[in-house]
């Protein structure tokens, strides 16, 4: 099975710092692989181990620094990597990003069987790029994938974790799947994996390489744009109480009763 794994480098959003002007401080912020993409990588590697002769190519769209993340992912057992990078891609929204990545996959790996993405990226959290890629390649998509319970080159049986329950679906390849958190253990790079990953080439794809024009990507190719950005400020007024356990319980009881309109005994 020929698998295209799409990953994204994101700022570590648990460690955001603010400037005096309520804008996000971007200098010195650590970049990490989007956590959902690690689940996607695990699922792709699992499939590779189950289907003989499988091959995984990792794709990412971003600045040249993203190469280190591609190497780390190859060290887990992926075979090759593509860095979709061009200054002209800057400012792409999800539509333009979906188009750009789909073109790169079509250019580098026209005979792919499966595209694996994370369900969300923690910085934008739009959950749109995966389905957008599937749309541009005109292939079926399965979102919210929890696990793959049966696989062959031609078909996949997948479970989806939805709001109301667990759905099992069957899809034929080529297809795109978006992966949720996995139950199995996170893969770790082995020493020989790290050594061989350092030797593997990372192919760079520019706008011209994938046959796009400036009108189709970046800011010009994006139908949406940010008109303003502002800090999210809470309107709740905290009162902090530091008391003994009995008084805390009393306060908890009273607060629940006062604000819920009474509660069950």
């Amino acid at each position, binding site marked *: 099975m020929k698998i295209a794994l799409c990953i994204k480098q994101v700022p570590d959003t648990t460690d*955001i710092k603010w400037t005096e002007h309520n804008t*996000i401080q971007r200098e010195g912020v650590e970049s990490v692989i989007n956590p959902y993409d690690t689940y996607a990588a695990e699922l792709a590697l699992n499939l590779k181990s189950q289907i003989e002769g499988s091959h995984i190519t990792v794709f990412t769209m971003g600045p040249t620094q993203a190469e280190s993340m591609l190497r780390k992912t190859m060290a887990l057992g992926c075979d090759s990597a593509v860095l979709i990078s061009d200054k002209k891609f800057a400012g792409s929204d999800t*539509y333009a990003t*979906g*188009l750009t990545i789909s073109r790169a996959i079509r250019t580098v790996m026209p005979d792919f069987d499966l595209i694996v993405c994370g369900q969300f990226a*923690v*910085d934008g*959290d*739009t*959950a*749109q790029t*995966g*389905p*957008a890629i599937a*749309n541009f390649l005109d292939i*079926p*998509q*399965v*979102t*919210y994938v929890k696990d793959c319970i049966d696989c062959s080159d031609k078909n996949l049986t997948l479970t989806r*974790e939805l*709001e*109301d*329950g667990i*759905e*099992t*679906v*069957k*899809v034929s390849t080529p297809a795109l799947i978006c992966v*949720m*958190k996995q139950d199995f253990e996170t893969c770790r790079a082995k020493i020989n994996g790290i050594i061989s990953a350092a030797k593997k080439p990372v192919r760079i794809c520019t706008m011209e390489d994938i046959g796009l024009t400036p009108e189709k990507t970046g800011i010009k190719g994006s*139908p*949406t*744009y*940010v*008109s303003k*950005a*502002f800090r*999210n400020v*809470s309107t*709740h007024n*905290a*009162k*902090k*109480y*530091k*008391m003994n*356990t*009995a008084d*805390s*319980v009393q*306060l*908890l*009881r009273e*607060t629940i009763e006062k*604000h*819920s*309109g009474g*509660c*069950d005994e």
Partner: protein
Amino acid sequence: MSEYSGILIYAQVTREDYIHTVFFELVDKAKELSKKLNGAEVNAVIFCRPGLTRTFTEAFQNKGVNKVYCFEDEKLANYSTDYYSKLLVDLVGVIKPEILLIGATNQGRDLAPRVSGALGTGLTADCIELDINEKGQLAATRPTFGGQLMATILCKTYPQMATVRPNVFKVNQQDCFVQTEIVSCPVNISYLKNNVEIVDFKKTIDTVINDLDSAEIIVAGGKGMKNEKGFELLKKFAGSIGATVAATRTAVEMGLAPQSIQVGQTGKTVKPRVYIACGISGAIQHTVGMSGSEHIIAINNDENAPIFDIADTGIVGDVFEILPAYLNYHG
């Protein structure tokens, strides 16, 4: 001037054959937007099995939906990305709405990007506010960077598409009756293949899971609940006050709770009367999903935890002392 007019809203039909509440929340919001668009029509589109649409007629009329475009077919009884997106794209091509709104449910988030891609138009996901600006454009505000930054996004193309999570907008209790026109649309899908076949569905048994939307009181646990025993304690406490249990992403990732009860940026948005955050530090990824609660109680032994910045009542103390003591006195 654009040839596009009117607001089209996707009416998602649930597996139990009712219309998802997020639709009604969107209709009320659209009615507001319509006033700033010279009274633009507020219309709905529905996909379902034959005969189902008319059972919703009263609900559509009471909410003031002008037209309902219905696609009825046995093949549309279950959601299919392929069928639904194709038919919706065709409909938009014919009726040309200026705004297309879809609930950001699992289904909506699967459908919307597919439709936006096929239409070549922009989509703003998971909005928390929708407005019409002075130029008559849809101004869609959404959280980014884990909810720490809000961005107002405009769209250069039509229809301007947006998704909104359930519970972000309140349903207006006042009705505004209109005579709804039901428009039967031809289902031309015989040439299409449904590529994803549903082979099984298991409703999640844990009943607490689906109650978050309507819960009056929510008890949520984070990393500070430490382990399964901690979550058992949380559930007991919740049970004693008739509350529904929720969890943070960290707790879900620690395997303490299922993803379906996760509240926050990558989970659900909730607005109960009382939200009791137990052992939750208050990372913005979590608080963005619960800060709309009417009253927030936080219990945490770290008095510097950011959760206290958004709480109404902050109790500095050990959950593992306070909750058992509560159950002793009142349980």
